[in-house]
């Protein structure tokens, strides 16, 4: 079974300095200096793929894991990590300007769909439910529509069955649903319990992590002709500051007592 993990490498937004959030009349924020990290939901999806592969040992099913990202050259080191972890294919659609893909879910899904149609056919496409910067929350659903495949959202676990079926656990209100699902399908990963990607060994990095990444151009993947049906027209900073009172005292115990007596006691007694 061929499974494609689509991931985005995002800037660590906690590292953006406050002044940069207060820039007006721009349609994107300069995040170029921030450390790059896996988008958290995508990271969970990639780890889930590896766990699925682990679980298939001894079973009569083989998973071919591929990964695709759309972004800058810096993102290739992330693909090489995936090679070292056992992914057999790694591809990047080369988009060097972050703002081009920030609020462009239709363009992104077109790129992914054309990769699957033209470069490497797939049985399952896994994505995170949303990215932390664009917050569009659309890509997996648009992919399902482009292929006419079913989609399962808020996926938190995968288990092998056979070459045509997967056991998919997804979170729903009040619990979770475990389904036996026929492929092909699109899976949108939510808050997976094991959301950190494992770390490859140095040996694996040396042996597997140096393979070249397949580079694709956006115009060859149909992305240049895709017009978004929704356009961003303004970005506004948000002021969330409150008039904070800082409790000063000589010891933490005194601070705690002050907090309780002055601010909590009455509030808690009223509940």
């Amino acid at each position, binding site marked *: 079974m061929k499974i494609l993990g689509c991931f985005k490498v995002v800037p660590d*937004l906690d590292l953006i300095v406050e002044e940069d*959030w207060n820039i007006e009349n721009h349609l994107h*924020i300069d995040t170029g200096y921030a450390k790059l990290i896996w988008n*958290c939901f995508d990271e969970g999806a990639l780890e889930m793929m590896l766990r699925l592969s682990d679980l298939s040992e001894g079973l009569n099913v083989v998973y071919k894991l591929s990964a695709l990202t759309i972004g800058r050259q810096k993102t290739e080191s992330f693909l090489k990590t995936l090679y070292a972890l056992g992914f057999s294919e790694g591809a990047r659609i080369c988009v060097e300007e972050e703002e081009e893909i920030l*609020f462009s879910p239709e363009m992104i899904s077109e790129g992914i769909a054309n990769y699957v149609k033209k470069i490497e056919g797939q049985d399952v496409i896994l994505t995170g439910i949303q990215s*932390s910067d664009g*917050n569009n*929350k*659309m890509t997996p*659903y*648009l992919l399902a529509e*482009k292929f006419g495949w*079913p*989609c399962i*959202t808020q996926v*938190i676990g995968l288990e092998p069955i056979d070459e045509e*079926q997967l056991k998919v656990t997804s979170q*729903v*209100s*009040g*619990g*979770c*649903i*475990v*389904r*036996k699902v*026929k492929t092909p399908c699109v899976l949108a990963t*939510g*808050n*997976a319990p094991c959301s*950190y990607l494992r770390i490859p060994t140095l040996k694996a990095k040396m042996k597997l992590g140096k393979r070249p990444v397949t580079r694709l151009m956006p115009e060859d993947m149909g992305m240049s002709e895709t017009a*978004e*049906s*929704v*356009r*961003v*027209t*303004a*970005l*506004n*900073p*948000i002021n*969330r500051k*409150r008039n*904070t*009172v*800082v*409790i000063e005292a000589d010891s*933490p*115990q005194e*601070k*705690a*007592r002050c*907090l*309780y007596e002055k*601010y*909590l006691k009455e*509030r*808690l007694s009223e*509940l």
Partner: protein
Amino acid sequence: MRYHFVVNGYADDVLRQMEEQMGFAQKYLNGMEQGEAIIYCRSAEDVQKLERHHSKEAVLISAREYAPEAVLHGLCDRIADGGLYIFGNDDAGTELSVRMAARLSGSSVTEAESLWLSEESAGDGELINKIHVMKMVYANHMEAAFVMEREPYCISLARGAASQELRMGSFVIKEEISCENMAEHIVSQEFYPEALAGGLDEAKVILAAGRGVKNKENMAVIDKTARGLKAEVAVSRPAAMNAWKPMNRLIGVSGAMVGPEVCITAGVSGAAAFYAGIEKSKFIVAINTDEKAPIMKMADVAIVDDFLPIMEELNNICK
């Protein structure tokens, strides 16, 4: 242009979702004509049992089990013209709004916070309405305005929107479309109920722990203090990812959005994605060793110190 509510009749919190749809319409759609609601549900009986409505008439799309593909089939068959379709704030609402717009060559925005109309010239002197939507982006650090280019306009609402009391009485059901047996990709399925998230949504007092709690042992101190304060324990994403607490205790954009009377944060930096989850708290206390952590300016009261002795002392006081 007319607007329609699209309602998830399978959801346990269907009434709250309807209240938020109604609150949204009252605030942003004044003067726009309202069309029938579209309700996807198990049966007409379930809809009648609600005994509340926010549109006079409704069309039902029914199936014993919820399957987005079946609902989409019914929805897209039914919609002949453009208009604005307002979905609820849950995962189903988000998915259906995006897929319906894609299927009908319309446009969609998820997690809409607000909406307004503008008039623009179509080029031949005629004025056309444009729909603009505001939503949070950059993990809730900023809000962005979007203009939607193509009808039908499909939006899902952001969580925690203002709500409006529903009208008493049931919907007048105009039509029921049955969509059984449309989920051919599902071979079997089983629902496993999960221990409740501790009622984070309804909690009056919340003690939220972040990365600064450092380990699971320290989390036990948080638990103990929470019991003393009669608070529910919640965590930020880094704490949940370290499995110090299960994911159903997660607060923030991808977890619970809470509005307790008192929210005490310990070792939380105050990342915007987390803060969005506690923003509606009436009173926020921040305890952090870093006086420059963002949370220290977004709280009502802050303590610059290690959380452990503070928690232990609070626990002693509560005894």
